[in-house]
């Protein structure tokens, strides 16, 4: 993957917004990869969790909303409790989802779930799913 790095991108509004929403010091991450090593949804991700934070550090925002990764993060906080640098990657993932959701773009639509499925699913699945994946 070819990535263009520029001082403009490093100080972009995108980088500032992620830091502001997540409350995390993004540059603390030194790419040890422990987050990706323990991530339970990693098998289905196209960009690894440690790569996501690297892209954010570099201000490369285009690839992130298109990637499945931020939508597959289940907020299990395994990465957050294991990070040796104290970065709460779960919060960074949330910030990245919100940047899309706050443009009123849904990742899942309620109408796409059948009535039978709605009856089967426990309420906590529905509420948390819509909290995380809809605007």
């Amino acid at each position, binding site marked *: 993957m070819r990535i263009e790095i520029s001082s403009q991108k490093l100080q972009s509004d995108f980088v500032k917004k992620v830091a*502001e*929403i*997540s*409350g995390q010091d993004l540059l603390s991450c030194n790419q040890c990869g422990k987050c990706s090593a323990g991530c*339970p*949804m990693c*098998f*289905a991700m196209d960009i690894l969790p440690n790569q996501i934070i690297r892209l954010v550090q570099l201000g490369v925002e285009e690839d992130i909303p298109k990637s499945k990764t931020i*939508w*597959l993060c*289940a*907020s*299990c*906080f*395994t990465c*957050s*409790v294991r990070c040796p640098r104290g970065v*709460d990657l*779960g*919060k960074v993932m*949330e*910030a990245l989802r*919100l940047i899309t959701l706050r443009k009123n773009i849904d*990742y*899942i639509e309620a109408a796409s*779930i059948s009535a039978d499925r709605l009856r*089967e*699913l*426990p*309420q*906590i*699945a*529905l*509420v*948390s*799913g*819509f*909290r*995380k*994946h809809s605007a």
Partner: protein
Amino acid sequence: MDLSYYPGCTLKTKAKGLEDSAIASLKTLSIDLVEVQRWNCCGVTYSLADDDLVHHLAPVRNLIRAREQGSKRVGVLCSFCYNSLKRANLLMKNDQVKRKTLNDFMEEEKGYNGEVEVVHILEVLRDDVGWGNIAEKVKISLKGLKVVPYYGCTLLRPQEVAIDHVEKPTILRSLMETIGAEVIEFPYATECCGSFQIIGNPDYITQRAWDILSSALRRGAEALVLTCPLCHFNLGERQQELVPRYSDFKGIPIFYFSQLLALSLGLGSQVCHFELNYGDPLPLLKSKKLIP
């Protein structure tokens, strides 16, 4: 002893077996769970964004309801509710600025400063009742039942809400051993089942369920014991996808800790609502002579 109790939505429907068996068990152990009046949704997932305060209102209002009843502590059974209420409470206790904003917004409520302590019922069993006292009340030992404890995420992470060691918890092992079960450990005990991804990505949950359940079966487990209604659904309901996919897989019963506790205390299967359990638990319980 009375203890304020926050149930949450799923315990009134899909996870009735978790609630009824826990209330009955605690009563036998001399603790009366008193439901918080006028409770509302806990919000399910704690809001992680620094600039999003409105989603903290739901859990905080429940804590205020508990305080109105004169409670110093509120017990919670659902893992999601526990996590959401516990984190919101810590925020109100420790973050002066956000506390003020939230208190100013909730005009109808008196200022809340995180006074109510949020505890999971497993903690109550360990710290208030004690394993020794539970052991004395056991009428039907679960001897010979091989279970794997599965914790999932929300009781253990993040660190500040953990009811036990974040990586090597033992609380479910202690409880299961107290009531006579044989405990088998497995490497997936604290791994996430995939959570709310069941809504949009059920196939990935099927994969997670296979990884977790097949590991338990390889180690000789006969059942999985857990606390979370969403783990119960994900690891249970997905078994119908796994049976046709893997010829060796015949299913594995999933229990709430409180169901096995109730059985061991001689409270019978009526309080357990096994009809709501996945993985067909009745043949196993009959073969172990735990139910008639």
